[in-house]
């Protein structure tokens, strides 16, 4: 293939991974913004979304049902984790990190015990090929990118137009003032954690037909999400989306033209360089 079409293919891959990455990282960013905690188990939620999708699609034969079931199941797991572990330790930042690392291993190993060490695919719900002359491109991937973009827009609307969104934003800006204005902060925390897990679970579900479900797939998702939220600036949703586009595109392009491993090394070093120049990331708040 000539370089021009090859670059086009790489860019298309980049757009697909950028949109999924935005969805994954948005969950992490939302949780950090509202609750001021770093959820290390975020990648495990992504993985769990993919695994649930495989189970539901395998048992019911319907990918669409799986796509609905995955975020609900993972959201419930997240809510349970919030009530049983995070709330009792009072969301203290360091304890929460330790607890979510523990949660990561528990979820991963439970999946290993039940689902096993296999990588299993789920058939895409539809198949068509977009012929671009130089190469054909999977129609499913294009739809996935569009669906992820749509979900981002929906999340955006929900945050800016609904009462729940208002509660979330109020808690993010000032927890105590929000409480004084009768925002049920405790419940908002739980919901934020559940929604954060649910969003990343959808990304995990959407990716299964392309990438197969495996119990260790969460680590890459976690790493890329971390890169994105740090580059975008901790706590800034806008920064997260912009950074996801940058990181996703470059990751996709370098992955196709060189190697996926090299792509992740370069992305990390690039972000380290940005931090050297600007410690709070692109859109981060002033360090308190």
């Amino acid at each position, binding site marked *: 293939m000539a370089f021009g079409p090859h670059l086009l293919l790489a860019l298309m891959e980049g757009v697909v991974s950028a949109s999924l990455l935005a969805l994954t990282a948005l969950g992490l960013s939302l949780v950090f913004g509202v609750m001021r*905690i770093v959820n290390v188990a975020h990648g495990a939620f992504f993985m769990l979304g993919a695994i649930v999708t495989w189970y539901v699609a395998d048992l019911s034969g319907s990918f669409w049902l799986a796509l609905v079931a995955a975020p609900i199941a993972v959201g419930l797991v997240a809510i349970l984790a919030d009530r049983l572990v995070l709330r009792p330790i009072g969301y203290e930042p360091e304890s929460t990190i330790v607890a979510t690392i*523990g949660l990561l291993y528990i979820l991963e190993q439970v999946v*290993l015990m039940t689902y096993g060490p296999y990588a299993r695919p789920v058939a895409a719900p539809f198949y068509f090929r977009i012929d671009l002359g130089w190469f054909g491109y999977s129609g499913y991937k294009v739809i996935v990118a569009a669906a992820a973009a749509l979900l981002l827009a929906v999340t955006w609307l929900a945050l800016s137009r609904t009462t729940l969104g208002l509660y979330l934003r109020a808690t993010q800006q000032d927890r105590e003032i929000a409480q004084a204005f009768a925002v049920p902060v405790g419940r908002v925390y739980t919901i934020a954690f559940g929604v954060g897990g649910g969003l990343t679970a959808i990304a995990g579900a959407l990716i299964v037909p392309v990438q197969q479900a495996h119990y260790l797939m969460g680590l890459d998702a976690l790493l890329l999400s971390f890169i994105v939220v740090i580059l975008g600036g901790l706590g800034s949703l806008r920064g997260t989306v912009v950074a996801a586009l940058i990181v996703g595109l470059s990751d996709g392009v370098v992955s196709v033209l060189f190697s996926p491993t*090299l792509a992740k090394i370069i992305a990390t070093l690039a972000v*380290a360089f940005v931090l050297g120049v600007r410690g709070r990331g692109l859109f981060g708040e002033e360090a308190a």
Partner: protein
Amino acid sequence: MTLGLHLAVVAALAALQFVLPAFHHGMLARIMVLAAYAVGYNVLLGYTGLMSLGHAMFFAAGMYGVGLTIQHWGFGIAAASVAGVAGAIVTAGAVGVVTLRTAGPAFLIVTMMLAQAFYLATLYFNTVTFGDQGFILPALEIGIGGRMFSLADPSVKYNVALVVFAVCLLATLWLVRSPVGRVLVALRENDERTRLLGYHTGRYRLVAVIVSGLISGLAGVTYTLLFSYVGSTFAGVLYSIYPLLWTLLGGAGTTLGPLVGTLLMTYAIDVASGITDAYLIVVGAALVLTILWAPAGVVGGIRARWARWLP
């Protein structure tokens, strides 16, 4: 009294080698090296209040520093060990400079990112590092006082591990009771007040990261020499989580905590791996239960209840 206690612990470890059966003898040698790693981690988490999720890169920098120079350039043990420790110091210095530009939870995220980049680099450059498969070093010998000792001999292994652990333990005991150590604790307790008192907090933090990286790297060097294997597994995220767990379980901010935590956890994992393939669930459960029920850890709990003087 404090110094006496630490010397007694070292003496007890030295005496144990004569009574332990072969299996536990070997386990304890390994545990002492890993405990030295945890001691290095504790300098940062326990005494400076910085939580890192990327210490595997310091451990592995020591490991690759010693392993690659022996493998590719035929270095002697002494020169290779210096290369390993130097590698860890340089890595820690570079990581420290980048990460300390950030504040709060970003420190932890960035250390994890950088460690993962380091891990991926060990896979990517597999023509040099042999990636996942790693490589086995030839039988090594050290000369002490004109006599040669084989590092494959169990009792040599045990005593080398003991010496390295004892040096790391006593060095940190000295450090945390020195003026520099007091400043580090002050940083942990109240960053702003320490800065107001006129201390250059950034510089002290960097020193803490480098000392912590140095000790972790030394542990990596020792591990490589004693167990003759280098592989990218040791640079992976699990080997960053381990020292965190060992330190927390034993008691962060106590000098003896890392040893206790490493001892308990290594045996727990050994037992669990005999029962199930998913033995890492023990790691997850231990992390969650420790943080829920015993956030001060074993030695931290003892200090709070009975022995306020423990360092």
